[in-house]
Every structure is written in C-alpha cells, then in structure tokens.
C-alpha cells in the first residue's frame, strides 16, 4: 500500500474555558490516500471541524491549543511546522472550503482580487496570467460570463454561485488535498446536487483528495468512499462507506442510521431516535462517552472506555459490544426525559 497523502496520529486539541480545559478533539487518528474522499460525520460539537482547523493551524490560540499528535503531509508534520512554511502549504497544497460562502469571501474585494492574490503568491503568476487563470477557473466551476463576472463583488453572486467561487479559489492552485467543511449545508437541494457533482468532476480530473465534513448521511452515501464517525471528540467508527451503512458496528452509528426517515419508505413506520441529548464535552461521563444514550450499554461501558478495534470487514469501531452480534436489538427508545 502506498503511503497516504495525509496521516493524522493521536491528534488532541484543547480549549481553555472558565470551567477548565475542554478537550474538543481527543486522540484522533486517520489517514487520507491520494485522490480518495474521506467523510467525517458527527453532530455539532463532535470535533469534526476543529480537527481540520487544527491541521491547517487555524485554531485561535489562545484559547485553543494542539496538545498532542502528528499530522504528516508529504513528509512534514503540519502541527509542528513553522508558520511561514504552513502558509506556503495552505492554499497551495491543502485548500479548504467552508459552509458559509458569504462570510468566507472578503466582501470588500472583487472576486478577481481574491482569486489572483492566491495564484500570484503561490504560483508566481504575473497580474495578466493570474487574471486569465481566475477567469479559466470560474468557467470551469460553471459561472456564466466569467470574464465579466470576475470583476464583481461577492454580494453580487447568489449563494450557489458564491460557493462555486469558493471552490474555484480553493482549486486554483491544484491542491493535493481539499478540506470541505459542510460545503452544501447552506444550499438548496438542487444546488447541492450541482456542487457535489462539480467537486466530484474536478476531483476526477485533478486527482485531488477530499475530506468532506458533513452531518448529512445522504451526502455521505453519495460522495464518500470511506467514512469516520465522530462523537464527543473521538472517532468511534471508521469504515468503507458500504460497510458503514449496511454493517454498522457502533450503536451510535446504528442509531444515526435508524433515526433518519428514508426518502423511499412508505412513511408509516415510526422513527427510532437516539434518546437523550448530544454530549457536552466539558461534562463527559466515565467510560464510553455514548454510554448514557446507548441502549446496549453494559456495566463495563460505565467504567472502561472502549478503544478502537478492527472488525472482520476491515472497519474500526470503539465499542465493547458489537451491534452485529449483540443479543438484543435496539429496544423501543426510552421516553426522553432530562
């Protein structure tokens, strides 16, 4: 097996708060091979965005701090790299697109200024080359009349078009890795379909690897080859996309899949929610973080935290029980009460 493009090992990130240090990302390890799409799933506060911000040195510090871990990218550790070196990598070799294209584009700069800034800095383009390149990128992401619109400001574009501008910008230096943080969450479904298709097309042409952060299981099934599920700052299951959807091993993954209505169901069956509330990482219980909401929990779950272990299908999961072979199926979800 060729060495992966990005190898993250034991990453932990803490934030200082009034109530003490809060560990938002805890001992997270994963790798991304060249050209593949890794999905990072999880609910708000599960640490999926912080993980990726940490890789790019974008955690505001203080209060945030990477307390442990390595992230090897092309033979260098992103986490201990000098800021100057990281700046050369960011945008050039690793690019990121965010959920909200309005707040991540500079409203006072034209699209041309923002797109050319990158290529002049990273690729040493002249002003003329950079502008031609910007227009070419806008055409590639499907913006009509690109040569004229390149001189517009972000507010003159619609939400879907702004996300296209973001993608054009992210891909203009042909990065090896694209981190897409909920890239379609703010968009309507028909526009979402266009954007996912666009990312896939560009990925096929350029061989870019993608880390796709999303809470939407449908987007995951549509776009990812492997998926890692996070809960309370840790990866609790990682598997090939089919294994995850058809043979989930962790009760949380199973719970997420069961709680979503299916588009093609008859609509009559009752949903099976996960009881309780998403965890507060400042007040995690002993043992497994998911244990208070887990219908399979046994005594051991309250005292020992399960480590990630391999399954026969080649996935990894962190649970003492294995829902595949567990004696009982999920019981009727308990009455939700706090």
């Amino acid at each position, binding site marked *: 097996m060729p060495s992966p493009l990005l190898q993250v090992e034991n990453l932990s990130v803490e934030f200082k708060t009034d109530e003490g240090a809060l560990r938002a990302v805890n001992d997270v390890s994963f790798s991304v091979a060249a050209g593949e799409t890794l999905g990072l799933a999880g*609910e*708000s506060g599960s640490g999926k965005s912080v993980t990726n911000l940490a890789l790019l040195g974008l955690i505001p510090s203080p209060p945030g701090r990477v307390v442990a871990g390595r992230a090897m990218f092309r033979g260098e550790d992103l986490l201990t790299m000098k800021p100057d070196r990281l700046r050369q990598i960011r945008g050039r070799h690793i690019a990121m697109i965010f959920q909200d294209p309005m707040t991540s584009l500079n409203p006072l700069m034209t699209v041309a200024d923002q797109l050319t800034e990158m290529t002049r800095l990273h690729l040493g383009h002249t002003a003329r080359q950079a502008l031609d390149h910007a227009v070419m990128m806008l055409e590639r992401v499907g913006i009509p009349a690109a040569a004229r619109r390149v001189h517009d400001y972000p507010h003159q574009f*619609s939400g*879907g*078009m702004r996300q296209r501008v973001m993608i054009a910008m992210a891909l203009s230096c042909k990065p090896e890795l694209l981190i897409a943080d909920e890239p379609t969450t703010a968009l*309507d*479904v*028909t*526009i*979402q*379909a*266009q954007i*996912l*298709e666009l990312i896939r097309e560009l990925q096929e042409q350029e061989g870019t690897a993608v880390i796709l952060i999303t*809470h*939407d*299981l*449908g*987007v*995951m*099934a*549509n*776009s990812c080859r492997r998926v890692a599920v996070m809960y309370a700052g840790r990866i609790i299951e990682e598997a090939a*996309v*089919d294994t995850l*959807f058809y043979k989930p091993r962790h009760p949380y993954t199973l*719970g*997420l*899949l069961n*709680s*979503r*209505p*299916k*588009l*093609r*169901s*008859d*609509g009559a069956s*009752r*949903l*099976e*929610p*996960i*009881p309780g*509330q*998403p965890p507060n990482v400042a007040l995690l219980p002993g043992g497994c973080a998911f244990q208070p909401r887990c219908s399979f929990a046994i005594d051991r779950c309250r005292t020992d935290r399960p480590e990630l272990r391999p399954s026969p299908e080649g996935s990894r999961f962190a649970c003492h029980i294995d829902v595949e072979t567990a004696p009982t199926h999920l019981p009727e979800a308990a*009455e*939700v*009460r*706090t």
Partner: protein
Amino acid sequence: MSTTTNSQAAGVPLLEVRNLEVHFPFSHGPFWRRTHGAVRAVDGVSFTLREGETLGLVGESGCGKSTTARACLNLVHPTGGEVLFRGRPIQGFDDRAMLPLRREMQMIFQDPFASLNPRMTVGRIVGEPLVIFSDLSRRDRELEVMRLLELVGLNPRFLNRYPHEFSGGQRQRIGIARALAVGPKVIFCDEPVSALDVSIQAQVVNLLDDLQQQLGLAYVFIAHDLAVVRHICDRVGVMYLGRIVEIGTAEEIYRNPRHPYTQALLSAVPDADPITERKRRRIVLKGEVPSPDRQYPGCPFADRCPIVQDECRRSPPQLEGIAGREDTHRAACYFARENLPTAIV
C-alpha cells in the same frame, strides 16, 4: 396518521386558502417613491386542510412556503385572496379579527434560539398565551404549564429555568408547548427540525406524531427536508416561485411525481443508501431559481425545465387533476398527463 373525527364539519375543510397573494412592493430613487414593481412572494396559492391532517409545503428557499404560513396567520398581510377557517372567511385580516383565531391556529418556528425570549423563564413563555386567552388563576396557570411541559416530554420542574439552559431539541419542545397552550386545532410548523442535530430530529418528529394522535391536531408542515416530509405528511404541496406547482397525497407525489420540478427536486435529494446513490440518475437542473420580482407570461419554471416547449412560455399552466386521480393529485404542467421520463430510481 390522519383521522377525520368531526362529522359536523364533513365537507367543510378546517382551513381553506383561496388564491392567496403576498406581494411586497418596492421602489427606487430617493424622492419620488413610486412603486416600480413587487416581489411576488406568494402568487395565488390555494389549498385545503382537513381536521387531523398534515399538509407538507416543500420547495427551495424563496419559493414562498414560509410567507404562505405567515400570511395565513396574518403575521404578514396578504395582498389578495381569502383564508377561511371552518368555512368562515377571516375578515380583512386585521388583528382584532385574528384574535379569536389565534386560539385555533398557532405556529412553531425554525430557530429555537431566536424564537424564545431569553429573559423569560420557561414558565412565563409557555404561560403567556394562557394570560391572554384564559381566566385561570396564577396557581392554575402554573399547573397547566407543568402539564404542557410533561406533554412535550420535558421535566415539569424546569418551570423556572431560562431558555439558555436547554439544548436545541429541548427548546423546540418549549416552543411546541407554547403553541399547544391555547388548545389550537392547526399548527403551522415552519422548519421545526432543520436546526436540530440528526439524532434529535427524530425525537421531535415522533413528538409531533404523538401529539397529533392524542389531540387531533392538523399541521401545515413546512420543510426543505423531503425525507422528513415524506415521513410526517399525508399530503404534500410543492412550491416554486410563489405558486403551488404540484399537490397531492404524499404517496402520489413521491412515487409518481408529474411536474418536472418535483421530479428534479426529488432526484436531487441524496438518499442515505450508498448502493442506490451509485445507481441513481439525477436530473441536474441548470441555473438557479429566478427572481420573484418579475412577472412571467408563461410557466415560471420554463427557463430551467428540461422538457420545455414553446407553449409553456406563452401562458401559465394551471393546477389540473391527473387523469384517474383527480381527487388526490394535481399538477400545473402541460405535460403532466403524459408519461414523462422519470429519473427517480
């Protein structure tokens, strides 16, 4: 899910909306504030709602689904059309005329953070409608609030807590308890679960299901999540540019969509099933939703429609029954009767 219990109301729907219009005029220039046009947010919407039934309104942002709900409750003033409650028109849509109807029709909002006053305790938030609409004593009101909290699955002892002490899902429950306080017949739910985490959405959807069974409520359920709508709704209306372009039973709309926009919308939703996703053919629509400030001589969907013909641009198609299913399925497309190539696998 739907139970029509009230025999006296047989024939007369609980709520009937006829040709509802909400146009927001706009003007240019600093001096002569002449009206230059109008954003036609809702442009001739008609539907009925029976007792105990759930009608879904779906469509992309800006299609007018929220404005339709707000106009029914007079939270924005309709500029045309009629709303009838139990067959009686709401006169003039002024606040005085609306007051008795607020007991019958309530609303739950999308953002459980913005729709609860952060300076009021849960007890006051849920109890406020009772101050206005009932003559219960302070003590009885408190008991009633505790009953309502229990009904929505919250601990009644939380009476004196403030909204910030609750999670998103719990806040949505508080909003539901507030809507239930006056004993309404219809609740307009405007994206009630879209701000919640996936694991919590199902809890709230099940709660809405249970309350409907127990209290015989009718819902107008507005959402862009088509899977949730499929699950909870008896009938579904699909909106585009301020109009309903297709309406029918959920079964009909999802299994046999006839309007090309409905087909494109359904085909765009990624399903949480990797094998179906790989096999699936998508209708990827070109372009984006056009601006609602223009008037279109023909079908509003014509510019993005994959099967557009010349006649579509001449005059707008009206909602018409699908042959053989006139009662359960109507679509506004000249080609809805013909067998369109369906892309939904």
